[in-house]
C-alpha cells in the first residue's frame, strides 16, 4: 500500500504552494484519481488524515474525483471506456494501436485555503474565518 507515500506527497506539495502565498490553514484539497492510477481513494483519504497531522493542512478535507479510463484507436477513430481490468484492444480493428486519453491521473487540482489575517488586530483571537 503506497497511499501513505502518495498522501505525504500531496501534503508536501500543498504546504510548498501555501507557504509563499501566506495561507493560514488549508480547508480542502481536491485530487483527481484515474481509474488506472493504482490508488484506492478510501485508502488515500485515510492516509491523508494522518499525513496532515501537525501541518497547516491539519483538519483539511480531501475531495477525490475518479476519472474513468478512456482509450482511443487512431486508425478507426473509435473511443471507448477501458473498464477495469482495462481493455486496450480496439473492438473494431482488433489491434492495439490505441492511446489512453484518461485514466492515469493522480493530480492535485484545487486547494481551498484561508489567508492569514493581514491587519494586526488589537487582540488577535484565534478563530476560523468563513468565506
Amino acid at each position, binding site marked *: *500500500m*503506497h497511499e501513505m*507515500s*502518495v498522501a505525504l*506527497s*500531496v501534503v*508536501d*506539495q*500543498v504546504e510548498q*504552494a501555501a507557504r509563499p*502565498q501566506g495561507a493560514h490553514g488549508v*480547508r480542502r484539497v481536491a*485530487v483527481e484519481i*484515474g481509474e*488506472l*492510477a*493504482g*490508488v484506492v481513494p478510501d485508502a488515500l483519504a485515510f492516509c491523508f488524515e494522518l499525513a496532515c497531522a501537525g501541518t497547516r493542512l491539519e483538519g483539511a478535507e480531501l475531495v477525490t474525483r475518479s476519472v474513468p479510463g478512456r*482509450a482511443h484507436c487512431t486508425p478507426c477513430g473509435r473511443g471507448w471506456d477501458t473498464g*477495469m*481490468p*482495462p*481493455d*486496450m*484492444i480496439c473492438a473494431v480493428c482488433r*489491434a*492495439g*494501436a*490505441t*492511446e*489512453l*486519453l*484518461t*485514466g*492515469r*491521473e*493522480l*493530480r*492535485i*487540482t*484545487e*486547494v*481551498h*485555503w*484561508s*489567508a492569514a489575517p493581514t491587519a494586526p488586530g488589537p487582540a488577535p483571537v484565534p478563530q476560523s*474565518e*468563513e*468565506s
Partner: protein
Amino acid sequence: MCRTVDLRQAVLAKNTMAAGILRTELTARGTTVVNLLSSPGSGKTALLERELQLCRERGLATAALTADLATENDATRLARSGVPVKQVLTDGLCHLEADMLAGHLHDWLPDPTRLLFVENVGNLVCPASYDLGESLRVVLASVTEGEDKPLKYPAAFGLAQLVIVTKSDLAGPAAFDEAAFRAHVERVNPGVEVVLTSVRTGEGAGVLVDRALAAADGERVHAPVMARAGA
C-alpha cells in the same frame, strides 16, 4: 478570507523528476537501468542469478541492487555470480522511489557499469507507480500464479516493456494456460513481448540480458499504451 487555488500538480511529479534526472546522469555514465517487478516468490532472484552469471561470462560490466523489507538473503545469492551487488532494506516500505535509488547508487555504483539490474520489492501494486529512471521495465510472473495475474494487476503489467514468465518447467503440473496468459497480457498491454523462462531447463536464458543490452544500445523499447497517457 478563503480562496480556492487551481494547483494542477501531478502528485508523483517529484519522483518523476528525480527519475528523469537519474536516467540522464546514468546514461551519461554509460549505465542502463533495468527495473524488475513481480510478486514475492515469482523467481526474480533465481532468474537474476542466472542472468548475472551470463553477464559475467560475457564480460559485461554489470551490477545489481536488490530491495527487500528485511534480510540480506537475496544479495548473498546474487553475489555468488561475482558481479557487484547491493542489498537495500526498505524497513517496511513497499516500493523503491527514484531519490532512494539515487541515494543508494551514490558512492556505490562501480564505474564503468553497463547494466544495472534493480530487483524491486516483491509487490505488484506499489512499485508500478514509481519510475526509477529505468530504460527497461520488466514484470515477471511464474506459471504457478495463474493466467489472470495481468488482469488482477493491470498497472504493473500495463506499464511493462517486457513480460517474463518464470518456472516454465512447472507449466504442465500447474496446468498453466499459456494462450490465456498471453491474451490477458495483450489486453492490458498490446504489443508487449512475453518470454517464457526456466532456470531449471535453461529456457529463455539470456533473453533478459539481450533485451537490456538492446535498450542500452538505444534500440526502440516497447511503449505501453498505458504509459502514453498524458496524466
